[in-house]
């Protein structure tokens, strides 16, 4: 009986170790397809947040109010969007998504962020020295922003053994640079129940 067990165990172990060999498999999928692997923040979350924020931002009266008062589209600058979550989240993806959709809506102008501006200014200085007078762009002609978009991502993680609930809350605020008024607050919440496997191969 013992012999049989040892024999079976050795053969099974050998078979399993051989079965572990396998190559990398790559499959292209649609960028809108939802694939949740670890339960962490992923492209679907980023897309859902940006879509919700964009539709909410454009539906609120702050854009129309600004146009009515000044006759111009509001110019917005992206400030700091802090990641205060439990994960290393690239906030640029959904901020860029928002920026693109808001600009493409034709109702809002975005001005370059502080980091982007420096590169543009360096180029302008270079133009001042090297470009022809007809094509040179002068300093001091930048469009000043009317509003700053700021925000943060917060999470609450509740974990018990192999189970956890991840709660994400994304808050974005549009603040008037003229008088510090908050003209729009967008909020998106995502809650996930994640159950990790007890066994693996």
């Amino acid at each position, binding site marked *: 009986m*013992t*012999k049989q067990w*040892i*024999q079976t*165990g*050795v*053969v*099974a*172990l*050998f078979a*399993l*170790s051989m079965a*572990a060999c396998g190559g990398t498999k790559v499959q292209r999928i649609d960028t809108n397809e939802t694939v949740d692997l*670890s339960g962490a923040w992923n492209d679907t979350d980023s897309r859902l947040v940006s879509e919700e924020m964009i539709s909410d931002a454009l539906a609120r009266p702050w854009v129309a109010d600004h146009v009515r008062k000044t006759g111009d589209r509001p110019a917005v600058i992206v400030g700091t969007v*802090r*990641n*205060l*979550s*439990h*994960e*290393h989240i690239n906030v640029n993806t959904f901020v860029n998504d928002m920026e693109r959709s808001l600009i493409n809506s034709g109702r809002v102008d975005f001005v370059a962020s502080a980091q982007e501006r420096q590169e543009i200014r360096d180029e302008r200085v270079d133009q001042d020295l090297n470009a022809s007078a007809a094509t040179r762009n002068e300093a001091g002609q930048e469009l000043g922003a009317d509003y700053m978009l700021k925000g943060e991502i917060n*999470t609450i*993680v509740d*974990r*018990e*053994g*192999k189970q956890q609930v991840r709660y994400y809350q994304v808050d974005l605020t549009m603040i008037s640079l003229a008088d510090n008024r908050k003209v729009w607050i967008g909020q998106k919440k995502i809650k996930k129940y994640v159950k*990790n*496997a*007890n*066994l*693996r*191969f």
Partner: protein
Amino acid sequence: MITALLHGRPALLGALVLLSLSTSGCAVHQWKMNELSRQVGYTDPAVLLQQLEQTETPDRDQVQRWLNRGMLHLLNGDLAAARSDWEQAKQRIESLQAASVTENVGAATVNETFRAYDGTPSERILLHTLLALSYLADGDLDGARVEVLQSDVMVRALQEGEALNGQLAIARYVGGLVYELGGEWDNAYIAYQKAFNIMQARNQSPPSALKLSLIRSAQRAGRRDEVERWYKAFGTPSPLESGEGELVIIAMQGLVSAKTQAAASVYAPGLQQYNFAGAADVPRPAPWLRAPHYSIARPRSARCPDGVDREHRSLGTRGLRGRERQNYGSDDGSNGR
């Protein structure tokens, strides 16, 4: 019995030979890792990195490789590469928390080296702390904060077994620093207090930096009762003058001390013979302390060249894997798994 079993069964013999070869491959890898770690402090980290790159690592020991390579990258001054390796190690450790069917069968029938290395509880916490420090060094406060939060979640998970399991005072202290730098005084105070509690539970006296941090964060968080309590315990510190600041230097001192294993023999009446019944980890003073600002994670490598260690592993002794004493006076109290 084994000989009789194999007689006339070439397939079974072949499978056993292959299994033995895979196990010996691990032993060679462990020996090489250990040799590399012995050279830290004496040899240029770039040279050690090259040697490590030339070492083949079984998939089950990939975590150890990433941890060690990350530390060598840090010693080499390449923070981004160190962080990349540690992040990979962190993700793999997470995925290894599920019990493996094949590894358990291998560990039960052959020996413990069939289990994938997933770090001790204190190593997992220390990994978050090292990552947090690397983000801080790059000026990424939010990145460091993420690591502090992840460390907190992990500590809570580890505490389900034992209160001090995996807990490191340094991890809490760095967490406090991160919160403090972000102006989160209440969170900073809680983190410092937890660091103090860990040290107290281990009968260690808190360093003056921690005492000052406790008082200052309690003051800034508006916890007057707590300030009074710490004043009574530590005395009243002299406040900073206008224009003065505080410079915090975190020095990683040397390497963790290597461990040897000692076996005890007991008489088993049923078997009419003496058998190995267990093993103890004996800290051995580390002779290589020439890199005063860095520490290196050496999860399993400290054990490999030791003859006793190999003997234990060949006997399939459980609970002997990868425990190391942290030289900042903490231990996870786990059995290495």
